[in-house]
């Protein structure tokens, strides 16, 4: 199961476009050559650090010779462009190619080693290259390096003119190209193999990933733009100095990588700007500057190991929570009339163990026949108004109750650890039933709500019957999930915290149908949902008492019905049919023709007919002994 939409369809698109346009326009704000110099350095460091992350963060391969690859780019540029008079525009990419060749050489000793030995051998390798460079003073200038390297120009326009404008944009273009390369590469099959090798080496090997080849590819891929950046740096500072091999430069880049967050592309890129500016700002402190940077590395590792990227994610979560919470709060008052009209029921807030939830309740019907109340529980990233057709059809005979799950609809956001899981949702349902005094209800649950309904009954709450839709019962999580659901990309969305606009559309469409004037509120419900509700709920599926639910279904202690859409995009119908049910209505799972994931909404007539007969049978069982006492 894999889910990786093209970049233009991800949540990263808009922030990246904003960052890019800011970077493209910055030279018009900072017209002096010093600030542009710092930004150009930041571009170079960003390229080197983010490519290093390919081997260190993604590959888990601690290549401490990465900085040497950069130095090799610088020296290749120097020797080609100065000594051999090659055009700088060819010497720069040649730096990348030579670095790739050297990376392949590094890979040879690294192939057999692991852990600390990789660090040691790569340090030795970079020292070896360093010693060779300073011993060949005829070509490399020895310890004093090469000076007055040719600069970049096009047709006589020197890039250093207009306060380094040409270098600024060349650096920016290189950074974009490098980041695009890393992005594509990490999502290609090689990138997947690299990550698999890091996360579970033996499993990856068993699946046919070659360790040696993966390491070789990792190191060579990480060398390409590092070497090109070296060539660019050489053309910019016009010096090739052996300092580039030193521990000081290595520490600086390592701090960028770690503070940015290892295992991400964007982290080191962002951190490069922060650290470069910070390190320039404290530049006149001399040795204190190194102490501050080193202290920063240690403090970040101790107190915030995720780095800047984790901080950005946390900020994003805070923002998402605040916005979704604010939406719920505003709508609670403002759109109440529209919601009450949709369900034809009064809405009120009920305080539960997990915070206030919005409950719609039609109240006891006028009909004299004592029918049980019906509690309807909606699914992931939806809202109670999705049951509009059932409220209309059954309100004359039954007391209809529906509520918004915490973090959904107009209920409040809640503590994610405590509340966003199926057990807590069942407790919320218990509290709602207790507050309303609705006894022995028929419980209908849709999708995630289906699990809540099963959990409610399995906990021992007296119910007159349970019906589920779009919910395959599970015995073991996560093992059964693979069998119970069709592995589509939409299913991945069920646990994804942040949605891009097209993901909202995709999820709402596959759960509730395409967006129309009528179903717009369901699409809107997806954007309101607290992203943490999805993420935590999916994570905590693993710690449920699933066997208890399965036992209840097998023993048939509760009247039970399955009413799925025949063309549900998520479900594996064969799995659902293969389970053992003790007391299932009509003796088998029922399919509503063309019902999709939400048959009660897409095909209300057919669904309501089936649901009504289930209720009738559950209340007046043909065989005695199926009702709970």
């Amino acid at each position, binding site marked *: 199961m894999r889910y990786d939409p093209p970049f233009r369809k991800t949540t990263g698109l808009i922030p990246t476009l904003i960052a890019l346009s800011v970077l493209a326009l910055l030279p018009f704000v900072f017209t002096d050559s010093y600030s542009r110099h710092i930004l150009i350095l930041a571009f170079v460091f960003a390229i080197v650090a983010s490519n290093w992350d390919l081997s260190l963060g993604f590959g888990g391969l601690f290549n401490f010779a990465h900085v040497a690859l950069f130095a090799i780019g610088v020296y290749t540029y120097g020797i080609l462009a100065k000594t051999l008079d090659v055009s700088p525009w060819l010497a720069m990419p040649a730096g990348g190619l030579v670095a790739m060749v050297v990376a392949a050489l590094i890979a040879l000793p690294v192939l057999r080693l692991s852990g600390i030995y990789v660090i040691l051998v790569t340090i030795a390798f970079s020292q070896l290259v360093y010693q060779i460079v300073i*011993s060949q003073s005829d070509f490399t200038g020895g310890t004093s390096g090469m000076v007055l390297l040719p600069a970049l120009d096009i047709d006589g326009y020197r890039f250093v003119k207009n306060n380094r404008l040409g270098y600024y944009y060349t650096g920016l273009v290189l950074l974009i190209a490098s980041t695009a390369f890393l992005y594509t590469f990490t999502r290609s099959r090689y990138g997947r193999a690299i990550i698999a090798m890091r996360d579970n080496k033996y499993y990856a090997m068993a699946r046919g990933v070659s360790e040696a080849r993966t390491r070789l590819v990792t190191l060579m891929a990480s060398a390409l733009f590092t070497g090109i950046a070296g060539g660019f740096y050489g053309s910019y500072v016009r010096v090739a100095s052996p300092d580039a091999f030193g521990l000081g430069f290595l520490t600086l880049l390592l701090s960028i990588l770690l503070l940015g967050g290892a295992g991400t592309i964007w982290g080191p890129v962002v951190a490069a700007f922060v650290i470069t500016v910070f390190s320039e700002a404290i530049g006149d402190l001399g040795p204190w500057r190194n102490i501050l940077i080193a202290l920063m590395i240690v403090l970040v590792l101790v107190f915030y190991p995720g780095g800047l990227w984790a901080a950005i994610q946390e900020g994003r979560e805070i923002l998402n929570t605040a916005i979704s919470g604010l939406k719920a709060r505003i709508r609670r008052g403002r759109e109440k009339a529209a919601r009450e009209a949709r369900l034809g029921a009064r809405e009120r807030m009920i305080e539960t163990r997990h915070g206030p939830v919005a409950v719609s309740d039609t109240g006891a019907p006028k009909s004299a026949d004592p029918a049980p109340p019906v509690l309807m529980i909606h699914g992931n990233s939806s809202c109670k108004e999705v049951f509009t057709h059932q409220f209309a059809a059954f309100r004359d005979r039954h007391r209809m109750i529906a509520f918004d799950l915490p973090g959904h609809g107009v209920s409040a956001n809640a503590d994610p650890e405590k509340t966003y899981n199926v057990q807590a949702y069942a407790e919320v349902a218990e509290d709602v039933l207790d507050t309303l005094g609705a006894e022995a209800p028929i419980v209908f649950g849709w999708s995630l709500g289906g699990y809540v309904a099963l959990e409610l009954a399995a906990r021992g709450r007296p119910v007159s019957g349970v019906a589920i839709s779009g919910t395959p019962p599970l015995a073991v999580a996560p093992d059964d999930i693979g069998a119970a659901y069709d592995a589509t990309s939409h299913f991945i969305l069920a646990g994804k915290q942040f949605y891009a606009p097209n993901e909202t559309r995709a999820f709402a469409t596959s759960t509730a149908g395409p967006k129309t004037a009528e179903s717009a509120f369901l699409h809107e419900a997806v954007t309101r949902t607290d992203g943490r509700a999805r993420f935590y709920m999916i994570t905590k599926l693993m710690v449920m008492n699933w066997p208890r639910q399965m036992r209840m279904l097998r023993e048939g202690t509760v009247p039970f019905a399955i009413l799925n859409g025949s063309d549900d995009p998520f479900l594996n119908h064969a799995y659902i049919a293969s389970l053992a049910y003790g007391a299932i209505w009509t003796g088998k799972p029922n399919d509503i023709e063309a019902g999709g994931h939400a048959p009660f909404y897409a095909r209300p007539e057919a669904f309501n007919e089936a649901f009504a007969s289930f209720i009738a049978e559950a209340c007046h069982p043909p065989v005695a002994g199926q009702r709970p006492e």
Partner: protein
Amino acid sequence: MSFETLLFVAAGGIVLGGLYALMATGLAVVWTTLGIFNFAHGAFIAAGAYIAWQISSTEAFGLGYFAGAAVSVAAMFVIGVITYALLVRPFERQPNLVLLSVITTLAGATILESLLDILWGARSKQIARVVEGDVSLAGVTISANEAVLLALVVVILIGLGLFLRRAPAGRAMRAVAQNREAAQLMGLDVPKLYAIAFGLSAALAGLAGLFIGSIRFMTPTMGTDPLLKALIVVIFGGVARFTSPIFAAFIVGLIEAFATFYVGLYWAPAVLFAIMIAVLIVKPEGLFGKYEKTV
């Protein structure tokens, strides 16, 4: 090449080897006990040299060589314990301790070297020699200072060996190195032993710094080169036994001396690193190491 030249080069190699043995043993003590590689070892060497200079030099306190040595060793032990507590202890429970400790000890080295720079400045200094003059033995003449240092190194290493084999604390350290959990279950105070190992290693680095400081000029980054040499030695010999890095140190010292003689000063380190890479490819556990299967 005459026999005399050969002896001369070999003598130089053995003196180098003695220094490397001292540095590599210090590095190996931490590596075997804690399973991490201490990149601040080079900075420890420099710090030891500067502290000794401050106490002993006539330009500073002028209390004499042995006072300088004693204070330097004691101070380095404390610095080692502090380094352990601040840079290694917080990460001990993390699964990627090896990488984290590389990074934190690198940061620690940067901090220590910058502090030396701030305290003593970048101007080169030198510790006075123990004795002046030369000694001749079997037709080879080396400086008396180097001969004394070599003898001291041998004494120190024997003392360290006895400590690790006989003294209760040394035996406890080896027990922790072999099996941390079992040692802990036997009631050994593992963090304390780790701290002692780190302190011991730093004290050895301080001694190495003291000796190097009287042979070469001192700078805050004087430890970088010895650190890399010690690294080569430890890789070369492995750390299976206490004596492995010592033998390896002399072999490496001799290789370096002869490489310098035959292929020149600039190429000698390249030869050493090439040999180290070759050893890592063929026998990653070191020349004297035992093959251990890892999961």
